[in-house]
Structures are given as structure tokens and as C-alpha cells.
């Protein structure tokens, strides 16, 4: 193994993998930071770059070996030992890379605001196992194709498999969940991760066995490999990596407006409660009452009166007044928002109008579309229309939307 570790290729490929992983993690201003599991799954996104690099490097090793050392060790046992030495030499930096990558996102998330403690070992385990499987596949392709072109084939094949798997065209168990937004409320499904792990180990073991077995004994192994690939298609057609099950009980702010959220969002909840109170006061001035209790938005809570204390796509983005106002003026417990058919345009216009009215009142700056209505109809008529729209939104009654909004 020491001989292989002295080679330059393993370190070159590891460096490129690290660069690809770091680049992916830093994209979009590292918006995962604060959500450790999202960070872990961003490493899953990086697999599309990292694994083809690894497959290409492994294929170069296989190509060199088949024209070199393997010609001197035809015996299966010696090939087995050589493979393990080579595999071990590559596994050390690969395992270290994934360990460091996962630890980095966890530690970086600790130091962020907000920060949710949702890291789990499962994605790190399957990412590492997937990388080691890809090494085995790449190496095997290098051995079989006996050409440097094997590295191109291995890289393209790996990329294609990952992309097609993510698209749902095939199911291999290799592709990670690869989140594009917050993993708030998500809990790993150990059975699914475990099945993927077993599948990857099984497929990898079959390929290794094929590599070190004399040709006349390969038929059974090839049949088993084919069966394993088919089993993958049947076992992983849906990505059940995570379930939605908020683990941590909410804590709630004091009255008059109550906002309940997991403890790590306490500060945001207090600020949101204050903003919701101001919004409620504006609505009350119109003669419209609004809810006095909200929960923080999390997956599975779409049907409750919720406030987005975090942006699901930009975790560290600051809480804005506009977000809270939007949640208060149009309570999400209204079934129209989650019905089978989307509400009519007048409903969305009502929401936008009331939202802009409240924002205009709270910020002393006229915003649209309230500004246009004010210009067209005058203060008194505009206020009456806003009141009607706010009442319709709060009472979840489409019939109360001013008829003229249909023409807006």
C-alpha cells in the first residue's frame, strides 16, 4: 500500500476531488451553512463532479496495472492482495476527504445563525461507500478496456449514471439525495441508507471477485452482478432517503402574537412575533382580525398558519418584514392555498395588494400594487378595496374578493 501511496496520481485525483467538493460547497454563497444536513447533501451534489474524477483516476490505475503488475501476478490470490493494497491506498485519501468534508459542513453550520443540529452519519457513510464503489468500477473498466480511454469512459459513465439516477430514469442506489434547499425537519431513513450501503458493498464485492477470478469462473459472478443491478432498479426507484418528522419540540413566544419554533430559532421567532403584531395592528385598523398564533414553517406544516422564519433556499438570509407580513395577511391554514386547483388570479392580487398596503403603512413608503390602486381610485376607495381583500383573505372566502380584481 505504501508503494501506491507514493504515486502521484492518487494525490492529484484527491486534490481535484477536494477542489470540486470545495467549489460546490461555496456556490450560491454557501447557502447551506447553518443547515448541516443540507451541507452534507451538498456534498451529495458534488458527487456529480467528484465521482467522475475518481472513476477516471481509478481507470488509469487499472489500465496501468493490467499492462504492468498484473502481468506478473496471474494468480487470483496475488491479484487479490494487490487489489486490496491499491484499494487501500486510494481508500485512505477518499475516506479522509469525505470525513473532512462532512465534518467541515457540520462545524461551519455550528458557527452560523441560524443553526440546526440535524447532521447524521448516514449520508457521509453512503457518500464514502459510493466513492469506493466508483473506484472499483473505474479500476475494473481500466482493466477491461486496457486503454487510457478507459478513464474517459469511466468518468462519462459515472456522470451519466449519477445524472440519470437523479432524473429518475434509472435507479442504482449510487446517487445521493442531493438537496437543493433546507433539510429542516428531515430525518434520515436508516433502512433506506442501509439498503443502499449493502447494495453498494455487494456490487463492489462482485466486481472485485470478477477482477481476481480466472476467466472460467466468471460466468456465475457476471450473472450475480446482473441480478444485483436489476435488484437496484427494483429497490431504489423512489428516493426514500429522508422522512419529514420534526425532531425537536417547538418553544413559543409570549403573547399577544405567539410564534412557535424549534429552540434554535428562538431569536427569529421573537422578532417575527413583533413584526406579526405590527401587521395585525394595521389589519385591525382596517377592522380585520388576523391570527394570533403562528408556527414556524417546516416541511409538513404548509397547511398551518406558518411564518417563514428561514428561507428554504437561502438558509442564512435574514428574516424580513415582508416575509412575516405575507404570512399574516394571508393565513396559510386557508384551504384555497393547498387545494387541488390553484386559486384565481384575483386571490393572488388580493394578497399582493394587502401585503403592499401593510408594508406601506409600516415602512412609510408606498409599494406596489397598492400605489397604483391609490393613484387610480383615491385614498378612500382604495382603503375600502384593501379592507375587502383583507377580509376575504382572513376569512378564506373567495366570494368576498372585490369583483373588480378579476380585471386587474
Amino acid at each position, binding site marked *: 500500500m505504501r508503494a501506491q501511496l507514493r504515486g502521484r496520481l492518487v494525490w492529484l485525483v484527491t486534490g481535484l476531488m477536494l477542489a470540486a467538493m470545495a467549489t460546490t460547497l461555496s456556490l450560491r454563497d454557501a447557502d447551506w451553512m447553518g443547515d448541516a444536513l443540507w451541507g452534507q447533501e451538498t456534498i451529495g451534489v458534488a458527487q456529480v463532479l467528484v465521482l467522475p474524477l475518481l472513476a477516471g483516476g481509478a481507470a488509469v490505475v487499472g489500465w496501468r496495472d493490467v*499492462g*504492468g503488475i498484473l502481468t*506478473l501476478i496471474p*494468480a487470483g*490470490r496475488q491479484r487479490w492482495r494487490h487489489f486490496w493494497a491499491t484499494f487501500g491506498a486510494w481508500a485512505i485519501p477518499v475516506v479522509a476527504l469525505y470525513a473532512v468534508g462532512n465534518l467541515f459542513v457540520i462545524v461551519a453550520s455550528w458557527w452560523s445563525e441560524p443553526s440546526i443540529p440535524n447532521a447524521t452519519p448516514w449520508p457521509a457513510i453512503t457518500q464514502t461507500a459510493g466513492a469506493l464503489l466508483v473506484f472499483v468500477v473505474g479500476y475494473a473498466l481500466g482493466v477491461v478496456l486496457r486503454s487510457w480511454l478507459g478513464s474517459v469512459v469511466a468518468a462519462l459513465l459515472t456522470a451519466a449514471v449519477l445524472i440519470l439516477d437523479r432524473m429518475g430514469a434509472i435507479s442504482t442506489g449510487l446517487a445521493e439525495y442531493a438537496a437543493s434547499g433546507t433539510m429542516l425537519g428531515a430525518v434520515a431513513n436508516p433502512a433506506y441508507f442501509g439498503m443502499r450501503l449493502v447494495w453498494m458493498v455487494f456490487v463492489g464485492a462482485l466486481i472485485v471477485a470478477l477482477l481476481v477470478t*480466472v476467466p472460467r469462473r466468471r460466468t456465475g459472478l457476471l450473472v450475480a452482478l446482473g441480478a444485483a443491478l436489476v435488484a437496484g432498479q427494483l429497490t431504489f426507484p423512489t428516493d426514500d432517503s429522508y422522512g419529514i418528522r420534526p425532531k425537536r419540540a417547538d418553544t413559543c413566544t409570549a403573547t399577544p402574537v405567539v410564534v412557535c419554533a424549534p429552540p434554535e430559532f428562538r431569536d427569529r421567532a421573537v422578532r417575527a412575533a413583533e413584526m406579526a403584531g405590527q401587521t395585525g395592528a394595521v389589519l385591525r385598523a382596517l377592522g380585520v382580525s388576523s391570527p394570533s398564533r403562528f408556527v414556524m414553517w417546516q416541511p409538513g406544516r404548509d397547511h398551518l398558519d406558518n411564518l417563514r422564519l428561514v428561507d428554504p433556499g437561502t438558509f442564512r438570509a435574514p428574516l424580513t418584514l415582508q416575509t412575516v407580513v405575507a404570512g399574516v395577511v394571508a393565513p396559510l391554514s386557508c384551504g384555497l392555498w393547498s387545494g387541488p386547483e390553484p386559486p384565481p388570479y384575483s386571490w393572488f392580487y388580493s394578497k399582493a395588494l394587502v401585503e403592499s398596503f401593510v408594508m406601506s403603512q409600516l415602512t412609510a413608503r408606498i409599494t406596489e400594487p397598492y400605489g397604483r390602486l391609490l393613484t387610480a381610485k383615491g385614498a378612500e376607495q382604495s382603503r375600502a378595496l384593501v379592507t375587502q381583500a383583507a377580509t376575504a383573505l382572513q376569512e378564506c372566502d373567495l366570494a368576498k374578493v372585490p369583483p373588480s380584481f378579476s380585471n386587474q
Partner: protein
Amino acid sequence: MVTADHRLAAEGDEGDLRPRLRDVTVRRGSFVLACPGWRTRPGLTAVVGLNGAGKSTLLQLLSGQLGPTRGEVELADRTNVLPQVARLSSASSVVDLYRYLAALRGVRRRDREPEVQSALELAGLVEHAVIPMRQLSGGWQQRALVGQCLLGSPTVLLLDEPTASLDVGAARSIWELMRELAGRLPVVVATHEASASVEFCDQMVTVQAGVVGAALEGDQLRADLGRASQSAESFLLGLIEPEERSA
């Protein structure tokens, strides 16, 4: 010209040496190799035949890489093989390569260094031990490849065309090395080289169109060559292509 004098007794004193083949047939696609009997003997055994006659197939059969379609095969305990395609132009030095190969062949850690040094000495590579393989000339690389066959305490060496593509001097040096190794353990060499094989072998086995012939004794071959007043190539051709010659 195969005469009764050339034939060795089927049962010799070295009955324990393996690999042994009995009534073996092996089929690879449309090619069939038939070996009525093979008994490994001490010393250097040259396996000669025309291209495609089945020499490499025979060596693969003897090493266990190929299984017989029919017949009985007894493999040696530890066979080290140098295939025709063997090459290793790595950045590793000769001694590092030997250490690694010794480890792969299961040599225990405490025995590894003495065995490596012994192989380097036997192969005459002590002064080249720290040179990376890729910096050695073709002849020295081949010497290193032959020398590595000694690692792992083999009971038999099977070398396939170890002197192919070497110049005369380098090839002769390899033959001398193989002759020396054959003093320690049975060495089987598949070769095209007529004069060297006759000069160095203790026995010769011909392979003609997929049929493995009986072993011919080296001393007798050399005596016959001396009497035949023909080139070694012509003499050998007479052994491996008798029908066409007589036609």
C-alpha cells in the same frame, strides 16, 4: 527428427515434480490443445513450436490459469509465471518492486528482505536495485522480470518468450540467467529461439499444431545437431514441422 533416443522415460525419478498433465485437452474457441502427458522435470525445459502452435496455452494450462476441457491436471504448489506480455515500466525501483511482489506472494515480513536480496543477487541486479524500472534498458528490465519470478519460493517457473524483442547479447544473458535458475528449480521456457534453446535446455518439448509432443533430452539434441551439420534453426524446424519438411 524425433528418434527413440530422444524420448525420455515417462516414469522418471522426479515423479513428485508438478505440474503434471494426463490425457488433457483444452479448447479455446476453435483452437484445441492436446497433451497426452506432461511430467515436469528438473532443469531447463524448452517448449518450442511455431507461432500459434499452442505454447502459451500449454503454459497457461500448467500454471492453472486455464482449466482442462478434459483430462487430469495436477498443479504445482507455487508456480511463478512470466507471461509473454509481461512488462513493468514503473517509477518504482527494482528493489521496491521485488519487496512488493514478495509481499503479494505471501512472503512473511521477516523473510522478505533476505529473499529479495537473494533474488537480486541471483538475477545480477544488486547494482541496479535502486534504479527505477522505467530507467532500465530493455535487457535489464527483462532480467528484473525474470528475477522476480524467484520471489515467493516457487516450486516451478513458467516463462513465456522471456527473450522476445531483446538483442542477441541481452537474450543470451537471459538464457544464462535461466540456466542458473534451473539449477535450483524446474524452469519451463516457451521460446522461438532455436540455437539458444538447443544450447541451454536440459530437455525440449515440441508443440505442433496443438499437440504437445514427448520430451527430448537436451544432450541428445545437441549431439544430433552436431552430427546434422545444419543450422540450429533448420534442425529445430525439423523437430517442430516434420510433415512439411518431409513434404
